[in-house]
């Protein structure tokens, strides 16, 4: 197939047929295989991974783009399913390796391969000096492969393949520098916490199969309304279990603690996996099964409440973090909370919209942070002739914002791009985040959740504050990389990152600006693309919206305290701008202590700094008791009771044998008595 054939399709304006669907998956997989082989065979040759890694992604992106264009020109209602081969067939259960092409999956593919390509290119610069270069690209390509399986999978189990596959890659990449015990632990923690959610996903699948007799999305979603009672226990159970899976994958309360630890991985990984793509899989899952969620108002409420709660909770922690990546990690959790709020209240498009814009600006923020870390790390490393080695002991943590400051002078491009992303996430018009976040806030009010609406607004304020704080601490004021008086040395050693790294930043910056224009609200018709995304996704979400409307859930176009969409858009924009300006004003004059000089915060600030002690709580309440129980099982039940019984039986047999042996005195008389008695017995029986 080629573009010409595609043009033919477009001309026909009729059905959509995916072009080379398998290639979308095959290219990243091939890349992973080649790079993986390279990790063993040509470990020191960096040319092949440099080419193969990004090329696999770009190729995949190209195929996706062709299909995306083809789809936009075609009339497609429902989904186009392509079967590659049949996978698990047993009795009445039949699961194929089927790829589902619809507007939602194509949009996600665009995000995954597009942002993924940029991050691959960036990685070429970021990971240049790493000895595990080839292995890194292998994992990264493999991740994209699994992410695409997740997105394109046409059935619950196939999606689950991607779902756990990305978890695996996340595990491998978080623990990429496996020699550091902390990093390896973080990877393990991520995998296990994800597995808790995955167990929920699995049980949800079993329920779906019980109810529908199939696990393919298309028939399940089509039959959902007829099969499951609205608000019934079954659909609520299914959706809540699915949501349990989402909380694991998307780091929502109560399974959120792995994501901040996951920052142990290389920064581009954080950008790709832990910001732009994998962690949004939960949102994607809910969007994919929107009909099921629409059928259960209880689940919807739970999703929305957990989302809003997580958003506020994580934002509060982000305010008091010093590690630049931790701030962004909590920011990600918070933004994911927004997305769940959106899909929870029923504004599925808004959720996906925020997913998209978030992918742009959060990837940009992470890559920018990576650039900063890269620069600081190199500044320190070069002075010491200390080639590799991560986390330089002489100076401290390159991630710590107290070791940054005033980087504006040394990294002007990064500085600009980061500010673009900051304004975007803070919700300053006309950048991407303004449109997407505002839509979520608006709909949460419009669908009649006043408390969640208030929480969302408060979170918006906090978002602007912590992001502005991050920018001030990193780029403004005086430089602290070499202490307060190390300006000269800093000038010599701190440099802007190479083009291969800032170029992707530039692209993402552009996307962070224009990304929001994909779905201009009707109330603010500033551009001709009014509600474009809404229309694009309509075929996917129409059934769910229909279900909700049939049961009286339709948005009232006013906020809980009155006022229309345009007014409240203005108000939230004003809040964002005011918060950003106020924070910059408030923090800029204050001198920041370096990491070495810092004193531990006290009071409530300390609670926030220590992340509300959730990790400690889990450790005391779950991890340690579990381990104690497990040890008891081993030592007491297994070695004590069961083996005790077994060995006891053996000992009893031996005792019996010993007792029998005592009869054998070796004296003739004993034997004679026994013999006589025996003879007596025989005679007695005879007589």
């Amino acid at each position, binding site marked *: 197939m080629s573009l010409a054939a595609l043009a033919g399709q477009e001309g026909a304006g009729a059905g959509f047929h995916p072009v080379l669907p398998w290639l979308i998956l095959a290219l990243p997989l091939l890349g992973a295989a080649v790079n993986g082989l390279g*990790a*063993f065979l040509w470990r020191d040759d960096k040319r092949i991974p440099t080419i193969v890694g990004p090329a696999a992604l770009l190729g995949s992106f190209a195929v996706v783009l062709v299909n995306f264009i083809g789809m936009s020109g075609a009339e497609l209602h429902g989904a186009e399913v392509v079967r590659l*081969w*049949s*996978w*698990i*067939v*047993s*009795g*009445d*259960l039949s699961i194929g*390796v089927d790829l589902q092409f619809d507007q939602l999956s194509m949009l996600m593919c665009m995000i995954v391969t597009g942002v993924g390509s940029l991050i691959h290119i960036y990685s070429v610069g970021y990971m240049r000096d790493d000895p595990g270069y080839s292995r890194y690209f292998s994992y990264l390509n493999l991740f994209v492969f699994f992410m695409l399986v997740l997105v394109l999978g046409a059935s619950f*189990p196939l999606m*689950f*393949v991607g*779902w*756990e*596959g990305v978890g*695996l890659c996340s*595990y491998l990449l978080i*623990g990429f520098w*496996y*020699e*550091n*015990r902390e990093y*390896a*632990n973080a*990877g*393990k923690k991520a*995998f*296990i916490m994800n*597995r*808790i959610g*995955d*167990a929920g996903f*699995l*049980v949800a*699948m*079993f*329920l779906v*199969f*019980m109810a529908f007799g199939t696990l393919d999305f298309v028939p399940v979603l089509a039959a959902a309304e007829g099969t499951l009672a609205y608000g019934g226990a079954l659909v609520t159970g299914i959706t809540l279990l699915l949501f349990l899976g989402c909380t694991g994958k998307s780091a929502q309360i109560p399974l959120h603690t792995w994501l901040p630890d996951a920052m142990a991985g290389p920064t581009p990984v954080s950008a790709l996996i832990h910001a732009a793509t994998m962690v949004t899989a939960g949102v994607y899952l809910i969007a994919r099964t929107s009909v099921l969620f629409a059928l259960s108002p209880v689940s919807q409420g739970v999703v929305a409440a957990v989302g809003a709660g997580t958003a506020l909770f994580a934002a509060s922690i982000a305010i008091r973090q010093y590690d630049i990546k931790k701030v962004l990690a909590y920011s990600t959790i918070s933004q994911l909370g927004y997305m769940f709020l959106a899909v929870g209240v029923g504004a599925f498009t808004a959720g996906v919209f925020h997913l998209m814009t978030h992918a742009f600006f959060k990837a940009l923020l992470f890559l920018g942070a990576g650039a900063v870390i890269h620069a600081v790390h190199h500044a320190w490393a070069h002075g010491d002739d200390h080639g590799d080695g991560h986390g330089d002991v002489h100076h401290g943590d390159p991630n710590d914002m107290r070791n940054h400051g005033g980087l504006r002078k040394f990294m002007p491009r990064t500085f600009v791009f980061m500010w673009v992303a900051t304004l975007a996430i803070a919700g300053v018009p006309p950048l991407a985040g303004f449109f997407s976040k505002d839509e979520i806030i608006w709909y949460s009010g419009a669908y009649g959740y006043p408390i969640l609406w208030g929480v969302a607004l408060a979170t918006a304020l906090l978002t602007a504050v912590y992001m502005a704080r991050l920018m001030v601490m990193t780029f403004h004021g005086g430089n602290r990389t070499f202490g307060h008086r190390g300006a000269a040395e800093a000038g010599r050693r701190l440099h802007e990152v190479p083009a291969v790294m800032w170029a992707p930043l530039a692209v993402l910056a552009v996307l962070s600006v224009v990304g929001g224009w994909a779905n201009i609200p009707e109330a603010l018709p500033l551009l001709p693309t009014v509600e474009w995304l809404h229309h694009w996704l309509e075929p996917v979400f129409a059934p769910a919206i229909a279900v909700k409307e049939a049961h009286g859930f339709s948005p009232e176009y006013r906020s809980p305290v009155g006022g229309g969409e345009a007014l409240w858009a203005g108000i939230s924009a004003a809040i964002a701008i005011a918060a950003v300006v106020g924070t910059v004003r408030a923090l800029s004059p204050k001198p920041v202590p370096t990491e070495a000089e810092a004193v531990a915060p006290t009071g409530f600030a300390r609670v926030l700094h220590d992340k509300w002690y959730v990790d400690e709580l889990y450790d005391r309440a779950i991890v340690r008791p*579990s*381990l104690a*129980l*497990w*040890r008891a*099982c*081993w030592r007491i*039940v*297994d070695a004590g009771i*069961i*083996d005790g019984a*077994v060995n006891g039986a*053996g000992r009893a047999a031996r005792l019996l044998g010993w007792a029998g042996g005592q009869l054998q005195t070796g004296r003739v008389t004993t034997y004679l008595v026994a013999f006589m008695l025996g003879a007596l017995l025989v005679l007695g029986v005879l007589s």
Partner: protein
Amino acid sequence: MMALYDGHWILTALVLLPLVGGAACLVVPEARAKTVALATTLVLFALSLPLFWTFDTAEPGFQNLVSIPWIEAWGISYAVGLDGISILMILLTTFTMPLAVAGSFSYIRRRERAFYAMLLFLTTGMIGVFVALDLFLFYVFWEIMLIPMYFLIGVWGGERRIYSAVKFFLYTAVGSLLMLVAIVTLAWIFQDGSGAWSFAYEDLVSLELARRAQLWLFAGFALAFAIKVPLFPFHTWLPDAHVEAPTAGSVILAGVLLKMGVYGFLRFGLPFFPAAATDPVVVNAMLVLGLIGILYAAWVAAVQPDAKKLIAYTSVAHLGFVVLGVFGLTTQGIEGGILQMVNHGISTGALFLLIGMLYERRHSRAIADFGGIAKVMPVFAFALVVVALSSVGLPGTNGFVGEFLILVGTFRTHPWIAAIATTGVIFAACYMLPMVQRVLFNRLDREENRALTDVNRRERLILAPLLALILLIGVWPGPFLNRTRASVEALIEHVETRSASVPAAEPVSVEPVSVEPVSSDAVSVDAVSIEAASVEAGGGE
């Protein structure tokens, strides 16, 4: 060549070949024994492989059937055959053996002739168990297996080898003796009804036993099988046997021997005693024991300091899943169970091989003695990670397909048990990942570990087919599931119809025979079912 496969003699050849090879091992020079053994097992594998293609997937009954009278006075015959339940087990055995032999090349340094002879004699026993269709013959093979295994552990084992070997032997012998009683009783009941002795599978499976008799006889069989599986709380022989056995012994133990318990349930337990096997109390008891096995073994595994013991406990957990699938009594559950047995053989066998390779280099199995090995043994690390992921059932590997089918199937009949069992996937991660981390990752902080050499070519050749199968079954399990389908569906059909028509023991106190609502997929199997028997024998007279 094809005539061999049509002509039914192939199974006999598979049984006899290792015997001949083992005898040859004993007489050749010490240094040649391993070559002879490897050649024998490779030929065996090559000989068995075409079975996979010549197997008729539409036929639920036995294929390649041979039945020759042996001890006619007692109705004992040499009867062998294979069906969808046994074919994968046979192939798993013949596949595992060359790997086990090759994996012992540098591990076994003394009494090599006897060692390889024992391995081959063991092979005869294992294949015999899977092909035997006469209960007496089955029992003979079942017991024959014990002897070489006893010596493998007791002679070439670790420090506590004698204790472990005796424990293994006694544990399994206790179970199998009760099974012998049950077998003889079955034959006696048959003789009582028909006037002639018979131990033939098809004769005995056609017996219409009273409910009470079924329960007792099932208990006799079930204990033997439960010990072999091993089902909680009969599992404590396994960790000891695994830890002390040489690598090949562990591989075979995990790869093949543990399958015999579940195979026994499928081959004898369910079809012979359908009313007992569908009795709610029995089913729930088995499921709960399987469930306890899954969770409990995972917990105990998570706190083991010894890598081999950890893997041994994971076996208990995996086999718990299999038991769950079998007693869920659905097509998916049983097919998944059979597939999971294959998967477990591959992945756990591979884990034991890998730990064995580490042991050869470092003479330690303690997890704490390692760390950072990935740095010096990258290929080893890759293999261990893939195998570990297969063991935790990551989708895309074979482990997932089996576990998924088992859970889906069991969920239909026993949703709560299956739902709780699903948490087993969490604990699987809890035991496997820390082990992987503490062996492969973290800092390479021990001087002894710096000098470790990566796996050599022989070891790579051993690991390659295992890794390939892990991925192949993970993405394309179709051919494997295909071969089990007809037999499994016929088995379920048989159990359902026969458990519904079971006569009660005493006509006075007729209990209603409540049958579990087995899978709704009423696939009508009209073809030849297992009971092609002509003799109708009543049990109650």
